[in-house]
């Protein structure tokens, strides 16, 4: 469990608010209900399913192969930097480039970047760049040509990506010393090895599209963006329409449950319900014979898994309810159909929970790039830069967090409404099925704001 990366909310004082925080939750729920009514009245036909992508002027140049190669090279350089600094630099997480880059700039910072600018990670993906480069060289060296990759099994779907994101969450939230630079470096090497094996088996593009955890993770968020690259041409499309075209399959809902559940657990770590239970659970595992540290880690693994199961279970409850209104769809079909609407909720959770973390801790990258090993060097003259904790106050933080939560859930509601209209022949049945998705959205909204209040207190 990361100790260095304490919640930024803990760095701020208590917010000075005109009404209690829980009343914000009621107001947010009202906004969702009003949005639902507005959608039912003003959005009578599906709009997002239509393909309205169009190329941008200069889009071909921006998405050209030389630009892709340059971005890939930058990605590979950063990957090498993470491994090198993690193994050779100081083992103090705050003074080493690797942990801050991986957990703050990469894992959290790329989320808003993907939403704003599209699938930027695809261009900078070091594993994809190395895989394509190796494939290109091998293709020229092998006289009889390379063997065709295996067909990616449809039943595998997004399960490998879900497993990868879960493993990252375990490193971040469960493993003691998960933020240690050498741990980050070794984890990067292990993940790289597994990724290259999978790419060799199934092909670089197929694995990147369905199985590689970070590619799939950031691609999901990028589908909210108006920017999309097709056939090496950058273009624009209506916001959220990328999610309407997402083909959800095996593991998609599970992946989204891991994404939302891991943030839920991170936030619940501050709540009395967890701080009250976890010592007893840890003691239970120690009574079974486990040493203290494994017992502690197992406790947190149980907590993380429970949070993910809770999120998934609540979503399935909504699906069962939606199925009960009729239409002849199986629960599995509905779960896949509405899974894309969980992506804006995942975005809301990430942004609300971590945006101050990026604002504060992200500033550290300015001195870490100059002193990546923590050995006193000053490569770019920024080694003495300090973190400015005054960039945002606690009251403004709370308002931004509420805004992220509400905006994310309204977007989710819009997506689910549009999908229901496309799915059901009868518009009234579509709206009735969405009563249950509205309940799910209100539930996730309440949970998000409660978690934030626990973290901020």
């Amino acid at each position, binding site marked *: 469990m990361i100790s260095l990366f304490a919640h930024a909310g803990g760095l701020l004082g208590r917010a000075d608010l005109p009404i209690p925080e829980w009343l914000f939750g009621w107001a947010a729920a009202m906004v969702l209900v009003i949005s639902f009514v507005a959608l039912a009245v003003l959005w009578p036909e599906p709009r997002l399913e239509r393909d309205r992508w169009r190329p941008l002027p200069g889009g071909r140049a921006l998405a050209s192969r030389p630009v892709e190669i340059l971005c890939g090279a930058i990605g590979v350089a950063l990957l090498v930097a993470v491994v090198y600094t993690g193994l050779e630099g100081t083992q103090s997480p705050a003074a080493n480039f690797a942990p801050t880059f991986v957990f703050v700039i990469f894992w959290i910072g790329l989320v808003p970047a993907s939403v704003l600018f599209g699938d930027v990670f695809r261009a900078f993906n070091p594993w994809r760049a190395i895989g394509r480069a190796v494939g290109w060289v091998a293709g020229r060296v092998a006289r009889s040509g390379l063997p065709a990759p295996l067909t990616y099994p449809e039943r595998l779907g997004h399960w490998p990506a879900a497993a990868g994101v879960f493993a990252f969450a375990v490193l971040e939230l469960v493993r003691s010393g998960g933020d240690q630079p050498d741990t980050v470096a070794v984890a990067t090497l292990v993940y790289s090895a597994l990724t290259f094996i999978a790419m060799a088996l199934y092909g670089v593009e197929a694995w990147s599209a369905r199985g590689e955890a970070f590619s799939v993770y950031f691609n999901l968020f990028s589908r909210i963006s108006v920017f999309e690259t097709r056939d090496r041409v950058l273009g624009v499309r209506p916001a959220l329409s990328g999610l309407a075209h997402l083909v959800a399959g095996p593991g998609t809902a599970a992946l989204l449950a891991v994404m939302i559940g891991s943030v839920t657990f991170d936030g619940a770590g501050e709540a*009395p*319900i967890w701080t009250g239970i976890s010592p007893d659970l840890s003691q239970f595992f120690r009574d079974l014979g486990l040493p203290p540290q494994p017992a502690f880690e197992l406790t947190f693994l149980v907590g993380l898994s429970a949070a993910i199961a809770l999120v998934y279970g609540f979503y399935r409850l909504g699906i069962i309810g939606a199925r009960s209104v009729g239409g002849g769809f199986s629960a599995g079909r509905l779960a896949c159909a509405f899974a894309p609407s969980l992506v804006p909720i995942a975005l809301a959770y990430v942004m609300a929970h971590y945006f101050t973390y990026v604002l504060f801790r992200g500033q550290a990258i300015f001195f870490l790039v100059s002193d990546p090993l923590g050995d006193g060097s000053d490569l770019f003259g920024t080694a003495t830069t300090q973190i400015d904790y005054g960039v945002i106050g606690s009251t403004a933080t709370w308002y931004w967090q509420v805004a992220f939560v509400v905006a994310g859930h309204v977007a989710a509601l819009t997506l689910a409404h549009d999908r229901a209209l496309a799915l059901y022949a009868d518009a009234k049945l579509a709206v009735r099925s969405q009563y249950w998705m509205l309940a799910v959205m209100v*539930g996730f909204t309440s949970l998000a704001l*409660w978690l934030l209040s626990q973290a901020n207190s």
Partner: protein
Amino acid sequence: MYFAHAGHWLTSIAYFVPVVAFMVWLGVTQIKDRRDRRKG
């Protein structure tokens, strides 16, 4: 120990009142729909 801070628990429960209220409304609506279908 878990009930030592009742004020804290009550505040936490307040966050989830909208969800509970909505689920109750949904449940009542479902029961009414089923009754109407049986009658009809």
